[in-house]
């Protein structure tokens, strides 16, 4: 439970200087481009672009090591499961069949399947650096202003900033309750039986929920007293004004997004790039 959830640290790089709203818009443009396209050339292009930005923003490997491990586990599991469940998916998509060799039974290795799974893995992987850049170079208190900047109701955006604000408090409460219950003899280790695990989880969750509901009351009273939600709009203390760099960044990511769509529509005539025809 020692995980530091959002290890933002402020640095003097062009990426850190950009407004959170800019980075969020760019993040959305580039991830939607990757999610739409099944052209490995476009995906690799965006991946290299994001790795370059990654370098510019001076993120250290120690900040992202845990995430990289999780993502790698996910990608490997997904790769194996995809093959086991549907070894001919690539053949269906690309319409040709170049068999390399037969493993056993219906499981044979085809070029199409390999290419399909490679593309899919790249698609998943290339979103990750983009998310990390946004996460690690944006001050969490700027998230809310960025969200309301793209047109999301400021009340929903405020809920997000409350989540980020109270996550550490709730984590601390959880630890305290867990320690207290263990002092009373609750077995939290992996040795406990599965049937007891549910009950043990509940014995921590119940006090956590009840104390949180008390807290909801006092926070919402405090906010009401300060007139929260009286007007249709609000301003944000941490919101940064746009500068030239912000406009350039948005223009570049919009251009990449449009180029990816154009590649699919005019060159490939489909979301898939088919090298087998």
């Amino acid at each position, binding site marked *: 439970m020692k995980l530091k959830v959002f290890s933002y640290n402020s640095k003097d790089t062009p990426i850190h200087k950009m407004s959170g709203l800019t980075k969020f818009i760019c993040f959305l443009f580039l991830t939607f481009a990757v*999610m739409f396209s099944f052209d490995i050339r476009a995906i690799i292009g965006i991946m290299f672009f994001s790795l370059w930005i990654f370098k510019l923003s001076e993120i250290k490997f120690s900040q992202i090591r845990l995430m990289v491990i999780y993502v790698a586990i996910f990608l490997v599991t997904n790769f194996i499961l995809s093959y086991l469940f549907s070894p001919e998916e690539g053949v269906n998509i690309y319409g040709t069949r170049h068999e390399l060799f037969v493993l056993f039974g219906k499981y044979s290795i085809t070029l199409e399947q390999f290419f399909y799974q490679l593309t899919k893995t790249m698609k998943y992987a290339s979103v990750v650096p983009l998310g990390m850049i946004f996460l690690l170079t944006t001050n969490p208190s700027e998230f809310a202003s960025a969200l309301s900047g793209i047109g999301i109701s400021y009340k929903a955006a405020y809920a997000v900033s409350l989540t980020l604000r109270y996550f550490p408090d709730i984590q601390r409460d959880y630890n305290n309750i867990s320690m207290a219950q263990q002092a009373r003899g609750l077995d939290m280790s992996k040795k406990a039986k599965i049937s007891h695990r549910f009950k043990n989880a509940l014995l921590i969750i119940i006090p956590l929920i009840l104390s949180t509901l008390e807290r909801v009351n006092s926070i919402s009273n405090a906010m009401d007293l300060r007139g929260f939600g009286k007007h249709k709009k609000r301003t944000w203390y941490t919101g940064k004004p746009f500068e030239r760099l912000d406009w350039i960044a948005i223009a570049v990511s919009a251009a990449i997004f449009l180029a990816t769509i154009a590649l699919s529509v005019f060159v490939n005539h489909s979301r898939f790039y088919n090298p087998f025809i």
Partner: protein
Amino acid sequence: MENKKLFSVSTKTIVATGLGAAIFMLLFMFVKVPSPVPETNFQTAYGIAGFFGALFGPIAGGLIAFIGHALSDFAQYGAPWWSWVVASGVSGFIFGLAYKYVDAEKGELTVKDAVIFNVIQIIGNIIAWLVVAPLLDIVIYAEAVNLVFAQGAIAALMNAISCGVIGTILLFIYAKTRTKKGSLNKKN
């Protein structure tokens, strides 16, 4: 009993959403009960989404699951897997429809309340994990059809169990902390 509007958003709804999402995120990352099927867990977090949904309505339920899932994906993987995040949001939204029919504030949770809550949460889990998540996986990532529906079926079952058990127990306990109507008697 006050008239409950499903989609009204008060300051309390916003705060409950924010703090509910923080609990959802915490449980989603750290409090998983391993299930007999290898590599899968009962996500206790969906019990929280069900409970807050029934208490504060569909907007709160949907946003809690959506925000909580998106932020925990951000924290763990660096980027959210949108197809499953959206499905979480949909399930939370449907759990929240129980708000209109289940009244935990009246001081006790009747069997009828519990049944309604569970019927709604099972419908929500089926729609989210057997319709929304697989379809989005197919549209966005062109995943194989049988794979996504197998994953969806497991997720629907697990989440329905954890939401049913934890959500119902939480509602039951919360109701007990409220004062029952007519619980005070005039002493003769």
